[in-house]
């Protein structure tokens, strides 16, 4: 063994290593250039193909808008703006108004935000500012995992676990102590607006939490150190130094969560009760825009019925686009570092 290891370097030194490499270089200079035209043709067609793929994304969006608009034309003509203010949803007499669904979508989403925002900001604060380094990765992975669970599994869990808990424990308690507000009246079924709000909250927490974390990390460290140097406690540092600088981004995250909550279908359909009524109490069953499409689309007989459902889809599409665009602008304004750095300097 020792002998061999001694011999190896000697062998290497003796053999002329550089010889073959030199010959490659020499022959490379002798290669005639490939015809310019062929390269250009290949490059050009590759560019065109990739451009077509990119343009297909725009085409898809245009296609979505076109299909929704053309399929809802019948109902747009028949009802006009009254469609969005009428409470009548009567497939038997072909009268359609979307107000109960709009109400249900808005109320359940706002309820979800009210529950989700404090919890998301709290957990983001814990993960970025308080958590021991070893736990940080695990907790943020678990929160991300929450986003990977399909909607239908949330719904399944909500029907069999969450709804009984709400019916037996939470709703009687709410009715007793907060019943005077009028929001928690009537028979506690479990199934209803409150259940939908809670499930939606669980589903949008990962989005809001991860964006809040992102914008909090984007706040420069000097900001934190400066506040601490003034003698602030940790909480004062977080409040003044971090949260105040990140608030536009947190708002953006909340709106992004709202966008997801508005369009969420399966879990809500499974627990909201599916009754097109407007009730003040959160215990009462409701109906959302997404869930009426999910429930009635494949059974819709009659062109006007189908067209009305598509019009609800069109409205949902437009609202979520506006909400998402707004949210992205807000998040960009923070993670690009413009306001945070302006404060710091």
């Amino acid at each position: 063994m020792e002998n061999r290891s001694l011999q190896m370097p000697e062998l290497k030194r003796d053999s002329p290593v550089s010889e073959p490499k030199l010959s490659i270089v020499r022959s490379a200079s002798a290669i005639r250039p490939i015809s310019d035209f062929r390269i250009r043709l290949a490059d050009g067609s590759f560019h065109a193909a990739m451009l077509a793929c990119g343009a297909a994304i725009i085409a898809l969006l245009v296609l979505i808008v076109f299909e929704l608009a053309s399929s809802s034309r019948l109902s747009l003509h028949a009802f006009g703006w009254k469609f969005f203010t009428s409470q009548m949803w009567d497939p038997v007499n072909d009268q359609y108004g979307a107000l109960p669904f709009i109400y249900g979508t808005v109320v359940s989403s706002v309820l979800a935000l009210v529950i989700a925002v404090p919890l998301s900001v709290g957990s983001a604060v814990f993960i970025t500012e308080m958590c021991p380094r070893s736990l940080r990765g695990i907790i943020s992975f678990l929160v991300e995992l929450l986003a990977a669970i399909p909607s239908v599994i949330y719904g399944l869990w909500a029907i069999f676990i969450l709804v009984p808990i709400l019916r037996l424990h939470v709703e009687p308690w709410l009715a007793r102590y907060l019943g005077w507000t009028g929001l928690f009246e009537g028979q506690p079924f479990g199934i209803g607006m409150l259940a939908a709000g809670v499930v939606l909250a669980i589903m949008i927490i990962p989005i809001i939490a991860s964006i809040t974390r992102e914008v909090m990390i984007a706040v420069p460290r000097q900001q934190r150190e400066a506040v601490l140097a003034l003698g602030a406690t940790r909480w004062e540092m977080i409040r003044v130094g971090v949260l105040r600088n990140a608030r536009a981004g947190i708002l953006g995250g909340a709106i992004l969560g709202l966008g997801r909550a508005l369009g969420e279908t399966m879990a809500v359909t499974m627990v909201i009760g599916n009754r097109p009524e407007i009730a003040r109490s959160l215990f009462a069953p409701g109906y959302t825009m997404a869930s009426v499409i999910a429930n009635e689309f494949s059974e819709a007989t009659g062109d006007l019925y189908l067209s009305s459902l598509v019009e609800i889809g069109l409205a949902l599409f437009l609202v979520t686009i506006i909400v998402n665009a707004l949210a992205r602008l807000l998040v960009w304004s923070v993670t690009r570092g413009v306001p945070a750095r302006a404060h710091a300097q």
Partner: protein
Amino acid sequence: MPSNGAGAEERIPAVGVFRRFKDHLATFAAIAAVTLVLAPLIAIFVYLVYKGVGSLNWAFLTQTPKPVGEAGGGMANAIVGSMMILLIASAMGVPLGIGAGIYLAEYGQGAFGKIIRFTADVLNGVPSIVIGIVAYTIVVLRQKHFSALAGGVALAIMMVPTISRTTEEMLLLVPESVREAAYGLGIPRWRTTLSITLRTATSGVITGVMLAFARVAGETAPLLFTAFGNQFWNLNVNQPTAALPLQIFNYAISPFDEWHRQAWAGALILIILIVGSVAALRLVGRRGMMKGAS
């Protein structure tokens, strides 16, 4: 806050009791928030395993659903149907998404690239049920019946924006010097992109594809009126086809205990597929050069 030497304490006033109390309160509130956020996650997994494992057996994986009232039966047709729909979706969505990603990373520096990027973000936020409607009007209305193909089209539309944005991100991570080295050797641009840049970013691109795959694998809403569901075996792409999430939904809202049990078992299978792929790509992501794919 930290107590320094005796000399420092004379000049810096101690943190008041109330402020210290507020600090502790905030810490407590943050811990409570994390606990409340993680509780449903743990509850969901515990119940999935607890309820799912009990009804999971060989028959569940190999048989089709039995009529109401008969015990037994399974979701084999739904598992196969799901795979078929996902295969159709991937065949359409993956090449398109990667192509668009290549365009954005290699050619899309101008205004048109910006428009595509924004459109992809918008498309990402479109509710899945709306995509279902569009797939219905495009495919089902033309074909005059529900089909696996329509479900595949709906899921493909959902995959494209995710894949294109992650592909772009991963390609941009490849250092410019690698491309320049290739150009310096006289390799044409298209060949550089395919054999050098894309090749270098392969693991990241695969991560993006799997992320999109995991996202659409559990989608139910766009399949409701495209693939529609089926109680029997079907391998024809032009016929209504069962899908695992659809079957879970139909069984969960049914009034039968036996079907509820099967819904839990189906959910367990679905979550194993999805979480398994997410966890696997997380491992790959940590080992490979590409981080921050999610």
